[in-house]
């Protein structure tokens, strides 16, 4: 079905809410048109377009709640969904942690849609793939990449008068270029809201240069090194850490933010004072919806780390009420302050160190210390006296982002990270970090 405009989404929401006799009703509708082109071995491997629209209806009788979800929108289906949700709610026991629907919220629009998104078409995607493949072919390299675009809308409404509707559009691009003999590999990652600000050929040239420079990698002994982490190289590690900024987990003693003897570490200085991190749905570079879908609460600008101190923890509505704290909507983005220097400038000011383009397969080893393991990939280089001297073999690391953010030498210019698997939209600076712990070598190129 075609994407619903605001009036259509509002009409359907109202219709659904009018169908129920429950004490309260929450509705969310989301629709998207997602296009992609995937290529490898310098040819397109798959290309697709997916259209889907979903409706979720949740009703409550007192503290009994039920929900149903469908992806059909005729009158009969809408009624079916409501009756199904009501049936479930009547069977449900009272939930001791039930929170009634939130009251009317003010949602100040965020710039998640760009009208240039009309450009997305099979021909446009094919052209992006062509530019990337063509650039690689000209250098005798093999490209494997993925371009995806998405346009759509999100709508939320409840019987207390909450209503929000907003359109979204964005694109993500990654490409890995490899030498034909498999000895060199480079990668680049780009995200944007406006297709006019994206240049597939220019982005691909970065991966190409890294691939050409990364052949004949030398082995360095594992150990602690100063590293220059490109923005994409640290984003996964930070994702794990910010996923643990939950007040309940900390209060209950099961996160790195739990305090010995009880309580949490809100206000403690756990990081280098250069570290400043916040969430802001209106950020022009990384806008996200002005509401959190689950609670239907309005998002607001929130400091997470201020001058190295834990500035806030996430309180869901139940835990906030129990703790006597204000509830917070889930953050949609993470923005970390940086400086004005490029990655090249950070390298130029490094006496001895390692440049990391990308990190890979990061997993939690110990939540007590947020110890993570993972590997470097697609462009790891040795830096000496401000210059990249030679490529080096990839490393496995065992390191905690808490330790990493304590060992910061300098921060570079923040950049938007494109990662469909991330919980957050992220703006992260390049960073130079001391004593990063590499524990073994990998032969993988």
């Amino acid at each position, binding site marked *: *079905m075609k994407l619903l405009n605001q009036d259509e989404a509002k009409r359907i929401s109202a219709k659904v809410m009018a169908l129920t006799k429950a004490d309260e009703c929450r509705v969310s509708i989301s629709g998207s048109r997602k296009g*992609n*082109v995937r*290529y490898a*071995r*310098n*040819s*397109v*491997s*798959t*290309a*697709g*377009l*997916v*259209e*889907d629209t979903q409706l979720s209806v*949740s009703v409550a009788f007192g503290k009994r709640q039920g*929900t*149903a*979800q*469908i*992806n059909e929108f005729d009158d009969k289906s809408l009624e079916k969904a409501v009756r*199904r949700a009501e*049936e*479930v709610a009547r*069977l*449900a*026991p009272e939930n*001791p942690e039930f929170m009634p629907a939130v009251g009317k919220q003010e949602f100040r629009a965020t710039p998640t849609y760009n009208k240039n998104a009309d450009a997305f078409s*099979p021909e446009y995607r*094919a052209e992006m*793939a*062509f530019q990337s493949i063509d650039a690689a072919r000209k250098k005798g390299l*093999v490209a*494997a990449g993925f371009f995806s675009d998405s346009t759509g809308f999100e709508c939320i409404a409840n019987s207390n008068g909450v209503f929000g509707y907003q359109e979204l559009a964005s694109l993500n691009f*990654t490409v*890995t270029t*490899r030498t034909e003999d498999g000895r060199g590999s480079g990668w680049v990652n780009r995200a944007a809201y406006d297709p006019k600000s994206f240049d597939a050929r220019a982005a691909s040239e970065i991966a190409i240069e890294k691939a050409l420079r990364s052949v004949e990698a030398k082995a360095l002994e594992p150990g602690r090194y100063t590293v220059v982490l490109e923005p994409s190289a640290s984003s996964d590690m930070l994702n794990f850490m910010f996923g643990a900024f939950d007040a309940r987990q900390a209060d209950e*003693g*099961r996160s790195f933010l*739990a305090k010995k*003897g009880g309580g949490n570490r809100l206000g403690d200085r756990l990081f280098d004072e250069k570290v400043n991190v916040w969430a802001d749905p209106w950020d022009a570079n990384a806008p996200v919806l002005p509401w959190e879908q*689950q609670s239907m609460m309005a998002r607001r600008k929130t400091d997470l780390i201020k001058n190295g101190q834990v500035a806030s923890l996430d309180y869901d509505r139940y835990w906030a009420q129990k703790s006597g704290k204000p509830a917070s909507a889930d953050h949609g983005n993470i923005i970390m302050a940086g400086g004005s220097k490029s990655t090249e400038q950070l390298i130029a000011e490094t006496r001895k160190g390692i440049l990391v383009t990308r990190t890979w*397969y*990061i*997993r939690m*080893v110990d*939540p007590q210390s947020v110890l993570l*393991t993972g*590997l470097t*990939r697609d462009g790891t280089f040795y830096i000496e006296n401000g210059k990249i001297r030679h490529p080096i073999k*990839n490393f*496995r690391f*065992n390191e905690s982002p808490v330790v990493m953010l*304590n060992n910061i030498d300098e921060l570079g210019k923040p950049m938007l990270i494109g990662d469909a*698997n991330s*919980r957050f939209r992220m703006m992260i600076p390049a960073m130079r970090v001391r004593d990063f712990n590499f524990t*073994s070598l990998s*032969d*993988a190129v």
Partner: protein
Amino acid sequence: MERRTFLKVGAAAGGTLLVPVFGNAIAAEELMNPMAVQFKKSLADAAMNAATKAGASYCDVRIGRYLNQFITTRDVNVENIVNTESSGVGVRVLANGAYGFVATNVMTPDAVADAARQAVAIARANARLQSEPVQLAPVKGVGEVAWATPFTKDWRTVPVKEKAEMLIAANKAGLAAGATFMTSMLFQVNQQKYFASTDGSYIDQDVHRLWSPFTATAVDKASGKFRTRDGLSSPAGMGYEFFDAQPRHKVRAAGGVTTLYHGAYDIVEDAKAAGRQAREKLTAKSVEPGKYDLVLSPEHLFLTIHESVGHATELDRVLGYEANYAGTSFATLDKWQSKKFKYGSDIVNFVADRTTPGSLGAVGYDDEGVPGKRWDIIKNGVLVNYQATRDQAHIIGEKESHGCSFADSWSSVQFQRMPNVSLAAGANKLTPDELVKDVKKGIYILGRGSYSIDQQRYNFQFGGQLFYEIKDGKITQQLGDVAYQANTQEFWNACTAMCDERDWRMGGSFFDGKGQPSQISAVSHGSSTTRFNGINVINTARKIA
């Protein structure tokens, strides 16, 4: 690669469906009443006719109805029950030698015909970038056939109350035994999949899977220390009878350190053990790093198999189709062509299969209409084959596909996904207790822990749930802070002994991620308890400010 899809599913679902319920969220009679086969056939024909008219040389249509129920509990509360239902049609075509794919949730003949025409337009737009046309291995049309996961108890008919009560009982057992917190979940999946292609197949399949993971957390507030022990269950491709564990389904771990399960699962019993063991972990001896002989239980080893053999022998990775994301593979074509590449020691034999009952990867047909089958991957330690789809079979000189093409939804395009890849049991009679007897300095590892491997599947690091010191043939005490690192080829060549078929059982990954856009897949890996000599063990204890 086991991605964070587990969390993603929880987060995405939590966005819309955080509800505690004690009924059937979708009326059972509706669930049991799938779309009429004739309706699906007419939709598929509409799409195939439109695609052919628009110039497609091949077209397949997948009509799906996907039902999931996820139940989450925390201590004695049901936190949420998520019911999702999604239906739609995915149309894949070949035109001018290139693929095009379009999916729509509008299930009318006009909408699917339009989707088919758009898919042809996409294929044409990309054809100019093809270095060579897609070449499909032949598949004989099977006409109108059906296949269903064998089960005796349909999860859709089991009252939600009964399921939630089972999880709460597990949580209570864990708390009583020493856990400070318990969380448990039940994931249930039913995929009603209809496949049709211009080869003349109309295949109706009904696939069922379930998994019930839990975590017991023990907290020592005075020291600020906490430790967890996850459940030792394996996800299964079967019905709710999975939870009717009888004594014959229970397996005594080496040294009797805990109870393990085969064919059915007692979550309450396992949770009780977990509560006690999580508490014990708070004071477990921190491991001395160094070389150890590792004795790995199947509930642990499956994930090492998955990462170091399952993914490494996917032909799309070997060829470079995953180079941008999941990576390539060290198991390159030249190694396979040499017919003497020693992937492992002589006793290492790996078989791929789509047929083992109760496994997550068991299906009648893949998403290209290829019947499920079984074949060798590693024979007496030598790499002998890969996993292939229709468009890859010719590259390894095969005349037919291995049946490894899957999509996780009607809205996802099918691509190469691994079958069950399992390590054959040892040929000689050997029990886990007998295996441990010969180990002088070793560690017995059970359960899945942290896991990470590089993009060509050389360097890996694995943790676990339970670690027991083995000293002079005896299991002595729990160890903490254990992870092992190895290189895949060195690791499998260090395999020196394995228990016989009496100890063989499957572990599994419910949310295995791969591809762009990322898709999930469910797959099982079997083995018996197996020994690896001289593996590097690191100590993972760290202090932060």
